[in-house]
């Protein structure tokens, strides 16, 4: 498995072969607060880089979920739809959102590494 990468919309991506696993970051989950509703893209649909593919809602507000890279949705994590609070307890682990068959691997290079993301997250929340 490759190094985990991050987007400015607070998604994380890991890549194994040509499949990317995507979720939202711990920082994003903390900002949202108690997550009570999740909507994921349909399996088989095509996700386009930086476009909305889902929604997470906390008691406070709704936020769009974007995909940081393009590809076909090959799997979704039904367990976070059934129990959205999992996103708060394990955002960067078992509470992944969806898996993509990667269309263009070069898109991954546009994303940040952990150090860059942490700096970005710190700056954007202060």
């Amino acid at each position: 498995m490759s190094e985990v990468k991050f987007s400015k919309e607070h998604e994380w991506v890991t890549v194994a072969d040509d499949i990317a696993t995507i979720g939202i970051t711990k920082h994003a989950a903390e900002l949202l607060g108690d997550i009570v509703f999740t909507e994921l893209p349909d399996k088989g649909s095509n996700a386009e880089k930086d476009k909305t593919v889902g929604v997470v809602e906390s008691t406070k507000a709704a936020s769009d979920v974007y995909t940081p890279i393009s590809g076909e949705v090959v799997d979704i994590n039904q367990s976070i739809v059934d129990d959205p609070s999992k996103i708060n307890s394990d955002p960067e682990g078992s509470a992944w959102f969806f898996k993509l068959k990667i269309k263009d691997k070069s898109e991954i290079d546009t994303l940040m590494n952990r150090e860059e993301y942490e700096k970005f997250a710190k700056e954007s929340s202060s």
Partner: protein
Amino acid sequence: MNVKKTTLFNLHKKHGAKFVNFAGYEMPIQYKDGIIAEHNTTRNKSGIFDVSHMGQLFIKGKDDLTESLQKIFPTDLKKLSINQSKYSFLMKENGGIYDDLIITKIEDGYMIILNAACKENDLSIIKSKLDSKFELILRDDLSLVAIQGPESKDILEKIIPGVKKIKFMNGNKFSFNLADIYITRSGYTGEDGFEISINNNLVNKLVEKMIDYGSNLIGLGARDTLRLEAGLCLYGHDINEETSPIEANLKWAISKNRINDEFTGAKEIKRQFDEGVKKLRVGIKPDSKVIARESTKIFDEKNNQIGKITSGTFGPSVNGPIAMGYVSNLFSKSNTRVFLEVRGKKIPASICDLPFYKKNYVKGEINVRS
């Protein structure tokens, strides 16, 4: 505009509060545990709410003050005994609501609790309608703290003996650290509880004691989920200058014997009483887990827009999405099927009775704002 802070600001900060600007005040939206945990703590144990941003208006006077206030408010104040509270409204001539408020009769006049965002405007309206011989003071030397939830009465009794005897929507004077404080049995959560009016220089001490005896600080986030589950209106959202108490389904708060009487808005209220209204505030429950938030449009089965959501969130005790809004009165019956437009999709939902959440109360205690 300068953002104001309540006297408890540093205590909130010490307890890990996240702050939000609410009605010009920097107020805690939540603490470390988060909104759902705070909500459940209030329902199951006891929660403390800093509501010092709300206005505490004192008007001094005797029977002639009661006469004068009756000309403003639709409540039968003559029937109020000393220390009794009533939920009421400051209305426009057309029945629109400037503010919803709690009036308590006290020894030397009345105490009126006003919404933070409305208090200055309320003061100038009430002042303009009253004879200048009456003294009105909006007290900023006082804080207001609510303690709510099933364990609250025992916690507060340990600090201030005697409070347990207060009946719902009644109050009394008590003593804390040799100072006079005023406590009413009321609240905004659907739980049993109290609201305490106390001098700013003593409020930290009181709240710290409440925490020591097992209560917990609760932010505005949980206050909103609690009041929405209890079916209570939030001013500026569920009621405003464009809605009347009749449309808001708050008819019960208008004293029956005053409908033919004189008060601000009386003519329109009487007309609405007799002829009915075109829109009504209702409870709305989506079939699925989708949350329909404020401003969501409501449609009938034929795709005609019939109303709009005014408050919507996830109700932790209901364990699902809940909302309130206004619909055309033809669609206001319970179990009417409606559709809510969320992110371009029409979500099926039902009109339902309020409140969404109701406690089994101990004998004789009715625990809504009434």
